[in-house]
């Protein structure tokens, strides 16, 4: 019987636990569960890179075209030159030429003057003698545009003069890097020539004086087809370099090798202390050597010029550090003022349109600088197309960036479907301003939004900026796309391998 009672007790306790305790709170509880099926659908708003302008910008899209990776080659001050009359010229890599002739003037790029695009501009040289006043631009692809200053017009010198430099690019893809001339050659009684050199050291000269039928001798032609071991990125010729192999054409590589063109081709100049990261070479007058010699500059900031001492076969510091605002890009010397007037002036062009120049007319112990602002504006660099049933507003959201200070300024605009231009992002290096107003632009159903830039580099190093493109319909649906812009501030043949 006790066992029966024990069972009763256990049964009772279980019964109490089951019913009494849970109902001490008499809540009403209603539960629903909702299965959520998560899938995907193709985007109805897609990036459109059909407006890409190689090599200035290319955009890679993912397969859904809702992520964009843009390589944007900026426009920087590329090369500088002083002509037979002491006039200073420089060009940007799109071919806009600035020159100082009792004030600053500019010549619109041949690409703004009706000529088809034939590659980015790598170098400038000017012949301003008793016959011609020619401003020559060399493109990376080996095309030559010449601006006749007297006629006030560009002509396609590759076509008019029958140059074939472009065939080298087409066949071997060696970029052309430098054009120079023997400044004051005419004054000294020689022909004046444009001398073109590519990265592999192939050299072609064009004798403008022969064209003027002065001497009856034509020094035009291929002067060298012998590749160098290293890569020539800048050249300089002395005024007597009017005939093939007169030993006064010099080239320099980024690695600091200096070459001299002789009858047998390029020869490496004997140098005991090679200086690296060299970007420019010129010939000027040394007050401590009392002779004309080679001067080279480095890309790096806070560096001086170096002169070649033939006695020690080494480069030695000449003067004090160059005023540096951007990144050193090219150097030139005013041979006219030196030979005619006895004053020595060097000019160093920097990527952000700063020209550093020696100020005392003697040596390089005092530098000043002048800044010529050259803002570049793209046409449409990228589009966003909508096939959505709804209208959206679109804005650009800055996430972060790497090395953005290598840009002098950078601006992004969205041109909406209503043609209204909206400022989305703004960076200004000198004022240290980074703003992201992200003004909403209208993206109508079945229409597009155009993306435009203005930009100018500060330094030669690259910058990367990460954005999100935000698309929204009246605080209801927000879709965000990834957009990365990698800004390239130097030619690929300048092997910059580090970031500042």
């Amino acid at each position: 019987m006790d066992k029966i009672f024990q069972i009763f007790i256990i049964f009772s306790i279980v019964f109490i636990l089951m019913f009494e305790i849970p109902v001490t709170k008499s809540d009403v509880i209603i539960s629903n569960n909702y299965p959520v099926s998560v899938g995907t659908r193709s985007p109805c708003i897609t990036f459109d890179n059909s407006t890409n302008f190689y090599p200035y910008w290319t955009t890679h899209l993912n397969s859904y075209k809702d992520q964009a990776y843009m390589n944007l080659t900026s426009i920087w001050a590329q090369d500088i030159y002083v002509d037979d009359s002491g006039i200073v010229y420089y060009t940007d890599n799109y071919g806009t030429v600035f020159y100082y002739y009792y004030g600053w003037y500019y010549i619109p790029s041949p690409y703004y003057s009706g000529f088809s695009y034939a590659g980015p501009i790598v170098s400038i040289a000017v012949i301003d003698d008793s016959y011609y006043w020619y401003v020559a631009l060399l493109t990376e692809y080996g095309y030559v545009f010449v601006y006749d200053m007297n006629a006030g017009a560009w002509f396609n010198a590759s076509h008019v003069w029958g140059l074939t430099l472009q065939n080298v690019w087409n066949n071997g893809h060696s970029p052309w890097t430098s054009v120079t001339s023997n400044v004051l050659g005419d004054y000294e009684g020689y022909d004046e020539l444009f001398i073109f050199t590519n990265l592999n050291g192939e050299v072609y000269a064009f004798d403008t004086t022969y064209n003027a039928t002065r001497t009856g001798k034509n020094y035009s032609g291929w002067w060298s087809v012998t590749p160098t071991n290293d890569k020539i990125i800048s050249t300089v010729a002395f005024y007597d370099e009017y005939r093939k192999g007169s030993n006064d054409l010099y080239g320099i590589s980024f690695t600091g090798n200096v070459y001299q063109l002789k009858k047998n081709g390029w020869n490496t100049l004997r140098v005991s202390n090679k200086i690296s990261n060299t970007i420019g070479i010129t010939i000027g007058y040394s007050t401590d050597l009392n002779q004309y010699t080679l001067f080279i500059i480095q890309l790096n900031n806070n560096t001086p010029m170096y002169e070649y001492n033939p006695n020690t076969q080494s480069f030695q510091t000449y003067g004090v550090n160059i005023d540096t605002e951007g990144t050193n890009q090219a150097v030139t010397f005013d041979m006219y003022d030196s030979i005619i007037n006895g004053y020595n002036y060097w000019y160093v062009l920097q990527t952000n349109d700063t020209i550093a120049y020696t100020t005392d007319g003697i040596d390089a112990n005092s530098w000043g600088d002048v800044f010529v602002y050259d803002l570049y504006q793209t046409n449409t660099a990228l589009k966003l197309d909508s096939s959505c049933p709804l209208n959206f507003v679109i804005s650009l959201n800055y996430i972060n960036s790497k090395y953005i200070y290598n840009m002098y300024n950078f601006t992004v605009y969205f041109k909406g479907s209503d043609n209204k231009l909206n400022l989305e992002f703004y960076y200004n290096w000198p004022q240290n301003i980074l703003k992201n107003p992200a003004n909403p632009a209208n993206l109508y159903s079945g229409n597009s939004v155009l993306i435009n830039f203005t930009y100018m580099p500060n330094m030669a190093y690259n910058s990367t900026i990460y954005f999100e493109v935000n698309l929204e319909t009246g605080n209801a649906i927000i879709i965000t796309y990834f957009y990365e812009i990698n800004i390239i501030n130097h030619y690929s043949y300048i092997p910059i391998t580090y970031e500042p």
Partner: protein
Amino acid sequence: MQIKSLALLSTILGILVPMLVAATVVISYEYPLTFGSTKPYIYLAPGPNYPEASEMGLISLTNPPPSNSNVIMQQTIIINNVTGSDSVYLLNVLEIVNTSGWDTSNGVVYVLINVSNLNHVAVIASTSPINWPTSGINITSSYAFYIPKTTTSGPVLYISLCLWSGSASSVTYTGTIYITYYVEPAGSTYTP
């Protein structure tokens, strides 16, 4: 004999007490909530931005509510990411609706939302409409919302869904949102 008395007492208690409890349950059902063919007092419904999201093909229901009702009951919510995009926010596409309002003297209401197996999908809820950049509570597993006293009918909780890039897979998968309504009589001490 003492054991027998104890057993007898236990048996009586074991039978009588549940009867009392059963009586409590009856009282509980008399609380003014109705079910069945009529619309419940509090329920999940398409939110104010559901039509736009639906037009974009980003949300749908397996059995859309009939025209005379907007109650979402026991059906699958289908949401779509945009392939490749960073993220897609569907703001206020669902809502919890109270039809008649109640008075706190009659009790309080909590809405408990549980999220299960929704990888790369954020469920965000708020008692006021959610704006972008997102306001509201990001429910990572569960969260109980106290619904304040209201005497008018209308939405009392807004729900947004955010799909992150990781969910942009060609493979469709299924998770679950559990919504539980706790309605307590006045004087109850329950806290979810």
